[in-house]
């Protein structure tokens, strides 16, 4: 494997030395471009109390292209599909090399706090959300309890 670019080393170091509250990202031993990520659901959202597991991968041309991120924990969210794929502009067309792992994970955390059913990835969830937001939020809460409870993972 080619040597790890300095930028990735720097980012990794900073994630450890100056962690973001509610977010952890640790590179895997066998592949330092592959991160194990945990994001806590924002307190004011239906995902509050949830401890979500994700995986993140930095492709060869990172930072010229976005990191690849997906949820491993099942989540009921209009912008996250059944396979954990995330619909977020900064992960696609709006990626900028000035963004970092840290900022991307913050954006994902922000997305949990502000679901956007008008730009859906998971169509069925988005429809439910638009039809009956209250019920959708309840479902999101119960999924969080069922799949993303911190206790469950320990």
């Amino acid at each position, binding site marked *: 494997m080619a040597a790890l670019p300095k930028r990735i080393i720097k980012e990794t170091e900073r994630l450890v030395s100056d962690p973001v509250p509610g977010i952890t990202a640790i590179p895997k031993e066998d592949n330092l471009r*592959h991160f194990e990520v945990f994001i806590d659901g924002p307190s004011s959202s239906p995902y509050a109390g949830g401890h979500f597991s994700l995986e993140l991968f930095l492709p060869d041309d990172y930072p010229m292209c976005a990191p690849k991120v997906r949820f*491993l924990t099942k989540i009921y969210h209009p912008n996250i599909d059944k*396979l*954990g794929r995330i619909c977020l502009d900064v992960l696609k067309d709006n990626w900028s090399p000035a963004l970092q792992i840290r900022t991307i994970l913050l954006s994902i955390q922000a997305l949990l706090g502000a679901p956007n059913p008008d730009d859906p990835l998971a169509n069925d969830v988005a429809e439910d959300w638009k039809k009956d937001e209250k019920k959708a939020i309840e479902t999101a809460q119960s999924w969080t309890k069922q799949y993303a409870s911190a206790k469950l993972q320990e």
Partner: protein
Amino acid sequence: MSKIPRNFKLLEELEKGEKGLGAESISYGLTNQDDITMTYWNGTILGPPHSTHENRIYSLTIICDESYPDKPPKVKFISKINLPCVDNAGNVVVSEFDTLKNWKRNYTMETVLLELRKSMASPANKKLAQPAEGSTF
């Protein structure tokens, strides 16, 4: 080149399959859309022309376990087929099929399906008598 992890490689393959960006003569997708582990896949091969497979559609299952793509996937025909590399139960025999035997990490499910189709069209195999269309293992 850095090693792309299994899940992200499978997501790439899935996207290619979903968008129909690959070859037209084959197709593949997740058996179950909820399968967050992305282990079980369905594939189809359109029988190559000028062979006994012409106009037939063959269904297969592909299993990409945790060792994928370091190790080849397990490939099995659902539709009955008479091919040297396929055993009596429909399994594609690794030692008989070069793509699986000499597996490389950058191979994909698409590679496997296209190579199987090529094998079906090879001079040695294209005239082989085939079981009735629509029968399954």
